[in-house]
């Protein structure tokens, strides 16, 4: 009996399989690789720390408790411009508000704007990119042409114009920043879909009788998702920078919210009298952005499309 015979290699490969590591999910593999990357771990720790701060501040605010050293929005004019000391670690600003508390409070805003803006551009961008990439043809042309148009305008100008049109405010900033980065996501998603589409396994999925929708959802997107995750992580960092830029230009959030870019913009008048009002928000922005960049880079290495998707 031939089948008996062919169970021979079966046994062998069983033995051979002993060498293979235990079953692992892709996520776990990614996590393992990520852990090898020191920089990414540092980024992750910083992010965890920032999230913790933001979350604690937020929750305590909801519960009406004050856990920051001072009310970040409380101005005591008699205490304006106190240089950093043991009671006001980062000093106070022009209105006598505690900079340390404001910086911590600002974490909440920056993270929120970053994540929310990315959520917007991600959702719209992924849908547009997926449709363009999979449908191809005219749909692709139309969508990508519109994206090209948006890309042809420097995003910061576009965001400023949106802000000027929409008016100031956290929600508006989120929308403006979210809208301007849609094309990037659309492009990336489209690109990766096109490259994944070329893979034999997508063709195989078609041969066994899958419908297009299922192919996109079951075979293409899961293989693109890691690219999207990386892009989104890096996207948060640029969203945080954009928020700061809008704040700096005086277009950011409504007062008295402690937004880092806004703080920086206002500190500009005092660069010599109170340089610390400028230094600390700048450091806060840089660290946050750096953390997301570190993580994003680490994730990119971890998923290394060359070794995994292809």
């Amino acid at each position: 009996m031939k089948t008996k015979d062919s169970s021979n290699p079966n046994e062998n490969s069983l033995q051979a399989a002993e060498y293979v590591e235990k079953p692992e999910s892709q996520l776990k593999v990614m996590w393992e690789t990520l852990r090898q990357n020191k920089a990414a771990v540092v980024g992750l720790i910083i992010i965890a720390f920032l999230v913790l701060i933001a979350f604690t501040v937020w929750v305590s605010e909801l519960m009406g408790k004050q856990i920051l050293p001072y009310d970040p929005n409380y101005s005591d004019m008699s205490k304006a411009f106190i240089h950093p000391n043991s009671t006001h670690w980062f000093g106070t600003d022009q209105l006598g508000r505690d900079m340390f508390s404001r910086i911590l409070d600002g974490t909440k805003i920056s993270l929120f704007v970053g994540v929310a803006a990315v959520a917007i551009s991600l959702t719209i961008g992924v849908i547009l990119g997926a449709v363009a990439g999979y449908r191809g043809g005219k749909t692709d042309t139309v969508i990508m042409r519109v994206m090209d148009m948006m890309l042809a305008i420097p995003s910061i100008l576009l965001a400023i114009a949106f802000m000027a049109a929409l008016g100031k405010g956290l929600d508006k900033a989120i929308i403006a920043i979210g809208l301007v980065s849609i094309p990037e996501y659309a492009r990336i998603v489209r690109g990766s879909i096109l490259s994944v589409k070329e893979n034999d396994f997508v063709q195989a999925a078609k041969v066994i009788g899958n419908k297009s929708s299922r192919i996109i959802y079951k075979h293409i997107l899961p293989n693109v998702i890691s690219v999207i995750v990386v892009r989104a992580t890096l996207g948060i960092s640029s969203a945080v920078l954009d928020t700061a830029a809008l704040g700096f230009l005086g277009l950011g959030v409504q007062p008295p919210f402690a937004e880092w870019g806004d703080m920086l913009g206002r500190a500009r008048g005092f660069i010599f009298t109170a340089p610390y009002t400028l230094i600390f928000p700048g450091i806060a922005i840089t660290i946050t952005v750096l953390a997301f960049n570190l993580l994003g880079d680490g994730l990119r290495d971890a998923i290394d499309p060359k070794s995994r998707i292809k």
Partner: protein
Amino acid sequence: MNEVLMDIQNLSKHFIIDTNFFGKPVTALKAVDGVSFTINKTEAFGLVGESGCGKTTLGKILVNLYRPTNGKILFEGKDLTVLDEEKRRSYCKDIQMIFQDPYASLNPRMTIGDIIAEPIVINNLLPKNKVEERVIYLLNCVGLARHQRNRYPHEFSGGQRQRVGIARALAVEPKLIVCDEPVSALDVSIQAQVLNLLSDLKEEFGLTYLFIAHGLNVVKHISDRVGVMYLGKLVEIAPKKELYANPMHPYTQALLSAIPVINPKNKKERIILQGDVPSPINPPAGCRFCSRCFKELDQCKHHEPVFKEVSPGHFVACHLYK
């Protein structure tokens, strides 16, 4: 003598590779250009030819990955090319494909169990609770262990992956399997395992194969009849023994002689072809092989030879044979 499973008539596939400003095609690549042959039930039809001659393209047309530019595919008497997408898909079940690259043909995000189960599930072949059982059965058939079904493709070697690919193709109980160079990416010592598996399965399930390869030795081992392709066209078809004993087309002769023999004692006279395979974008006029042919006649440059039966079951397209 045999029942015909698939009758391919004058099949062509032209890829548009350049369009003018208004989107009208100006250059076409004739990957497959008017190919006709039949595949009988339960036979293995070997297809050989050099890289780029259109073997994969032909295979992909048969499994509905490409729409043919021209021609008919009669499958059990029914022309598949005239069906609409929905109906065409219902035939997918019957014609499956095994891909060349075992590394690229499995979705890296799915466990092999899911990969094998997927065709059963989406085609509603079995009730849900029976699927698992069937997957284990299929795994067993291709020589994989049942406990491996929760693993991901990257945990397997090339040979094992190729087995998964085979199991996936078998899952829908197809009538015809297009095997596109299923062993060329594998190590020598693994090749034999997969080739044997394919022969065993063929017998066990009464399968029909279109077996694509670029080397004649592998094809010879597995096929009943062999077709030789050159630049998008078939140049010769014959039963295996006949072809190897009596290759008629000069190209087939060269191909056969080019294969190194593992026996230093019988070093044979080689036919070394000059030059390279021309581009399918601008194939030579007349006989496409004439630019490299060592037996070229005057008319070869101008007249395309007809593909005709020279002896029973032996077809050839060459002016040498009247």
